[in-house]
């Protein structure tokens, strides 16, 4: 029964609130006074991997960073609509943004480890939350690094500078850093675009492991990657949501002409 449930592809139209991680309602974004996202409506299922695809500038990264309000760091940012987490609009005035970001982790295109030791990098979020008990930190660092498949490579040099790691290791460290906060949702913004194929494979395996406990939303330009990794896929074009369905159908028999053109490489 359980196995059946795991492999079952839920119908996106009939997602219950319990099965939904993020509910996007009529959400539009303007950056520098130009419309970037136009009235997006979608539900992202819990503990699944959802891929976002589309041309550069189609608004997928903007949509991704709307889920933890990282957009606001841009100047001249305006929005309308709602994004709900557990039935709560995260754009309400009283939302604690810092707290929100500990629940919704994010990993960026380029690895951005802090200029500190590997250990301190993983602890960063915890320390900010005022957690300083050494034994607990040690445990969390080890678990996070194991979950990010980095533990074996760095266990002997936890207190060396994180800047000495290779690009792939740095990216896994950054993922471990996000995992240390045990986020409910993990947003990945082209996490493998700067990495070599083998490291990319490592990270894809890692993402697959993560979905047991975490909802993953991944932006990628790599169609194969999106097809390999994701359970669901959404195709955006010029700020519009064109098609959203389970990956199997989207990549094998897209409903819309535009989607088909994009995934077969006829434009973009």
């Amino acid at each position, binding site marked *: 029964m359980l196995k059946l449930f795991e492999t079952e592809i839920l119908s996106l139209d009939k997602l219950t609130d319990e099965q939904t991680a993020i509910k996007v309602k009529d959400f539009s974004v303007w950056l520098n006074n130009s419309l970037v996202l136009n009235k997006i409506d979608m539900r992202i299922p819990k503990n699944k991997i959802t891929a976002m695809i589309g041309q550069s500038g189609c608004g997928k990264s903007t949509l991704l960073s709307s889920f933890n309000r990282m957009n606001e760091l841009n100047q001249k940012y305006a929005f309308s609509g709602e994004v709900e987490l557990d039935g709560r609009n995260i754009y309400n005035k009283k939302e604690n943004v*810092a707290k929100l970001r*500990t629940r919704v*982790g*994010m990993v960026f295109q*380029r690895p951005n480890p802090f200029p500190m030791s590997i250990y301190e990098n993983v602890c*960063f979020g915890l320390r*900010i939350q005022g957690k300083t008990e050494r034994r607990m930190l040690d445990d969390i660092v080890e678990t996070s690094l194991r979950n990010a498949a980095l533990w074996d490579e760095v266990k002997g040099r936890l207190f060396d500078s994180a800047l000495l790691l290779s690009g792939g290791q740095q990216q896994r460290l950054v993922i471990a850093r996000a995992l240390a906060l045990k986020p409910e949702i993990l947003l990945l913004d082209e996490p493998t675009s700067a990495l070599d194929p083998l490291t990319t494979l490592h990270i894809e395996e890692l993402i697959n492991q993560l979905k047991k406990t975490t909802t993953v939303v991944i932006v990628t330009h790599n169609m194969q990657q999106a097809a390999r990794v994701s359970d669901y896929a959404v195709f955006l074009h010029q700020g519009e949501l064109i098609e959203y369905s389970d990956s199997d159908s989207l990549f094998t028999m897209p409903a819309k002409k535009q989607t088909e053109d994009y995934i077969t490489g006829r434009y973009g």
Partner: protein
Amino acid sequence: MRKFSGSEKQTISSFASGLSAAILLIVLISLVLFIVLKGSAYFWPSQVFKMITYDTPNTEVSVFVPSSIDIDEFNQALSNKLNAQFSNSTLPMPLMVVEKVDAVYQISLHSGAIQYGKFQQINTPNRERYQLAALNDVVADVAIFQNQLHDIQTNYLTVLHRKIALLNQSGVGEKAPARLKELEQFTFWQQKAEALRQKLASYHLIFIDASGQPFDVLVKDINHLFQPNVMSLFDKVLYSGNKIIEFVSESPKQASTSGGVFPALFGTVLMVLLMAVIVAPFGAMAAIYLHEYAPNNMTTSVIRICVSNMAGVPSVVYGVFGLGFFVYTLGGSIDALLFSDALPSPTFGTPGLFWAALTMALLTLPVVIVSTEEGLRRVPEGLRAGSYALGATKVETIWKTVLPVASPGIMTGVILAIARAAGEVAPLILVGAVKFAPSLPVDGEFPFLHLERQFMHLGVFIYDGAFHNQTNTEGSSMMFASCMLLLIIVFILNLFAIIVRNKLRDRYVRI
């Protein structure tokens, strides 16, 4: 005019730029070399020549003159000077003869004065010893007497004086037996001290000056006695070493023409450190506000331009501002509020160390702001985003990730500020640096660091020394030595700051 071809233009432009770089390098090197050569001459013992001038056929005037050059060069320089003065004049050229006299002694006194003369004899009260070989014994005797005198003064006279002062305070009568007893004691020790002083005054050396006249030098006044013209190289090196130690550890003597520059050295370093402590946090905060918080609009740009322009304001303007605002207005208010007992004599309402450090901090603030902002600009956006994405607030992001990465930029600003403040003169004269300060700004008295005191500064000391230049050759060579010291101080302070900056860079910036 013929046109140059493309490749010729290339050659000319590369040659011209190379030439200007070479000229710049030569100028820099010669500046440092000049200062170092002139400055180190101060520490090397100078030779002494006897210069005899025959004004009229029958009168001759002789003097001993110290010189750092040898006798041929000296003669050459002298004849050049005479030629220049007298070749176009109707006056007859005076006859001058320069000779090197080996037997001449240089007598350096404790007061800093220097005399030259040939040794004749030692006079002691018991008239036993006459020869120079006995000088060491005489000096030992004198030292014993001086210790006794010192002992009497500190252990008896001062104590008795205090006791009598206490009696005066408590209103004990003129003829009270306690007072009479103390007075009697006081007179007794005073007489003893007087006897010792007389004894000391009877130990003296007799020298003969250049024109053959004898003169007295008290043994107790002599600091160092040696024959500069017959010194061995080892002795000269030893002498230089002592002189260097004296230079950096003693106070100036003889109106800043001899002795050391320790108070100026100490004042410079203390003022610069105080300034760095004030300017670094202020400059960094201002830069953080401008870069991280201020909205990116017209007002911010105007503020930025103002900050850059502040760096170009003449330093004497800052001095005047420091005097008018910090010293008179702020200092005056502090006096009125906290030190009203001491008024009308001012405590903080007068130029002093703190106001100087504050003025210099203000003067170097733009430099620190600009280079900190430069450092902040170099912090990758990814780091900020990474920090925010882990739930850090803006303050936490700035303190934990942005500032460490920008810290080399802050240090660069502090380095520039230090170099500027250590060499500044004009504003310092207005707000607290003096030609001679009777006491250091740090001593054993509470609160140990006396921010209100005036202090000495190497730059001001050099400026002051430059005025001795026309009349006194010793003064000018001390000025060069101070210049050299100032260069070394700035170099050491910069080196220290650069090492710190590189450490920070290794630690926080991507390799």
